[in-house]
């Protein structure tokens, strides 16, 4: 059936309008990207620009000097990968267990989890406890303290509760054990839920710098975010009258270094979004509606 001219015009306008909105949304990112490839001189003279007036890789050379950033990338990738794996496993198993009606006192157990979202011992006891566990200056200190989120556990529990109980019962009649049910039946059915908490955990591990600030002194264990935070902090400090700025021994590209830092930080994790965004939105909405 041929569509009317009016409808086709509407489609064209829609595409133009949405493309415009998309370009508007992406423009700050392009501005940061363009500036990161600009010389300090052109930034000072003309400000930030999407297209560099004078192309330069100085900012990237400055940020990655010494090669520490590659090691930090390695640490962050390991922490994100292993941390997310552990976190998703623990969280989903806990969520699955308390979503099952056969578990006695499941509401009381859920309340215990929920309680920790409202009240906690405070940062000082937490700091002392993690230190006393002997995790300081170990890669595991970047994973274990944040590898379980009660919020995400409750989110995925809500998701599990939307799955039909009859499926589980019928599989059970066929002789499947709890682990088999969880891994072979629940997991494929709950992909949107898993994708959601996976993304949340990935972002949380990837973006974390606080744990490194508190517990890591060894440079070899600095994750990317913490390392770049240090770089950013020192370039800012250099511009605030620090000793380095008292020394006129070569100028660091401070403005472009800030933007190059942003680009390097978001690089890998931004690639994850397109693959799981369809699950992500579904997971959030289902979890939210079925309380």
């Amino acid at each position, binding site marked *: 059936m041929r569509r009317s001219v009016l409808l086709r015009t509407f489609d064209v306008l829609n595409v133009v309008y949405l493309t415009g909105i998309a370009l508007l949304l992406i423009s700050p990112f392009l501005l940061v990207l363009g500036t990161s490839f600009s010389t300090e001189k052109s930034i000072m003279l003309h400000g930030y620009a999407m297209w560099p007036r004078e192309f330069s890789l100085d900012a990237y050379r400055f940020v990655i000097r010494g090669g520490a950033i590659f090691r930090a990338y390695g640490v962050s990738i390991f922490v994100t990968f292993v941390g997310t794996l552990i976190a998703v496993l623990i969280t989903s198993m806990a969520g699955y267990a308390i979503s099952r009606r056969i578990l006695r006192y499941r509401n009381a157990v859920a309340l215990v989890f929920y309680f920790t979202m409202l009240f906690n011992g405070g940062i000082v006891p937490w700091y002392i406890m993690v230190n006393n566990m002997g995790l300081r200056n170990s890669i595991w200190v970047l994973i274990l303290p944040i590898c379980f989120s009660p919020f995400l556990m409750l989110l995925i529990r809500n998701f599990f509760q939307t799955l039909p109980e009859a499926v589980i019962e019928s599989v059970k009649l066929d002789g499947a054990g709890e682990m088999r049910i969880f891994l072979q039946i629940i997991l494929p059915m709950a992909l949107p839920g898993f994708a959601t908490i996976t993304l949340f955990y990935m972002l949380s591990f990837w973006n974390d710098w606080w744990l490194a600030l508190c517990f890591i002194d060894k440079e070899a264990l600095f994750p990317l975010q913490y390392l770049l935070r240090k770089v950013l902090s020192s370039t800012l400090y250099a511009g605030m009258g620090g000793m380095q700025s008292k020394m006129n*021994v070569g100028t660091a590209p401070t403005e472009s270094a800030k933007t190059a830092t942003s680009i390097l930080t978001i690089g890998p994790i931004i690639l994850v979004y397109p693959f799981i965004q369809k699950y992500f939105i579904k997971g959030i909405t289902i979890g939210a509606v079925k309380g």
Partner: protein
Amino acid sequence: MTKGKGFSVLVVLLTLTMLAAFAATAAAAPALYNLRIMTAGDKPPDQQSVFDAIEAKTRNTLNVKITVDYIPWGDYIEKVRLMSAAKEKFDICLTFSGVASEAFNRQEMIPLDDLLKQYGQNLSKKILPSNWVWAKSADGKTIAVPCQYAKDGIYTTLVVRKDLRVKYKLPEITNMDTLGRYLDAVAKNEPKITPLLGGSIQAAVVHELERLYDPVIDYGYQGQGYFIGFWETKGADACKVKNWYADKRAQTCNKMGADAMNRGWYAKDLNAGIQGYDQTAIASGLVACLQMDYYNFNTIYNNAKQTNPSFELEWALINKGQPVPAETCNNFSQVSATSGDPARAVMFLDWIQASQDNYDLWYYGIKGKHYTLSSKGDVVYPAGSISTALPYAPTPWYFRNYMMDRAISTDCDMSKTAQEYWKNVKVLPLPSTAAFVFQTKDFELEITQLNTIIAQYWNDLSNGVLQGDANYQKFLKELDNAGMPAILAGMQKQLDAWRAAHK
């Protein structure tokens, strides 16, 4: 006694003397101590070689194994607070005005009076008494070791375009008259250039007020907090607490701000335009003069040379040569209550300032390896060094003494000139009442209200955006309504009691 026997006795005596001396030295050397220092910034890549050199040099005196933990600037205070609350062991930390007294009041840091008497002779000798005033607790205990940096160097100097001054055949800027002539010439002849970066007149005002009136001991900063003060002059006015904003000093400040605005020195829309300490404004050719911190002279000079090589910059100080009052010290080192050996911590701080050699080693690194000295005594870094990636460049803000600082060979001229000037400028001694600390806990509400009103009015009043007596009177009335009289009375009461106790 035969000649041979006499010689043998002499040898035995000498040997015994040497052994005794060795034993005494060995006994005097304290046990090795792991000294941990917390500071903000970036760890210098070649730090360990400096520590090794210091440890070797001081084995028989300090005998410390040094560790310095570097924390990003933005997180530093929070991290040290957390460590202190968790009773984590460290010895010395960089700290700041306000933060130091809070940590001391929480008993996270220790008083230093006795330790300084015993182990801090060099610190006491080399740091001016005016700096120690800011390192005292309310009850007069020394809670920190202050840094000593260039008086008045922080944002009260001006940087101007020398090439423009020469172009219009104007004399060097040394006072309000020469500054005015320069800014007028730019306003008249350079339509694309704003003569003065917004707010920068304050760098001139500070020195003009010092010339016109007696120094004031003030509490709070303009635009950043309530601002009241008292004047330790002779006569009826002695130590009378007053509202600074109602004083002739504030009125002069407003008059100068209005003058700057009316003579076209500022951008027309001051609040919408660039202002404050935008270092790029002069380098990019947007302004002809701005207030500046002399520690940033090299940065601003580099920026200008990079963007517009024809620009020439110079340092201008209003009323250059007049003695300057001692100003607030903001950077200190403190000794932690968790230190395993506070005496050793103070000994170490003292050691840094004990000699120029020690200071150079701690601040600039190993001579011949990290730097060399020019014939003028300037530090020369290896060619191609980048300021933020020197092999050894520790954060200096917990031990810095500008009297012992060296110029860097590549420093721009205005930086070297300013450094030399501040080393030799006469600093007026602080009156004894400067040690008085106003206890604000009963006035928190009033202070919050005052700060809101000050933030609303003062920037505009002092820069000529708001002019006329009606606006000024309205501002004063609102301050009074917000509780200024109560604060003045409370402070006067505390000051009188303090003076009676410290006669």
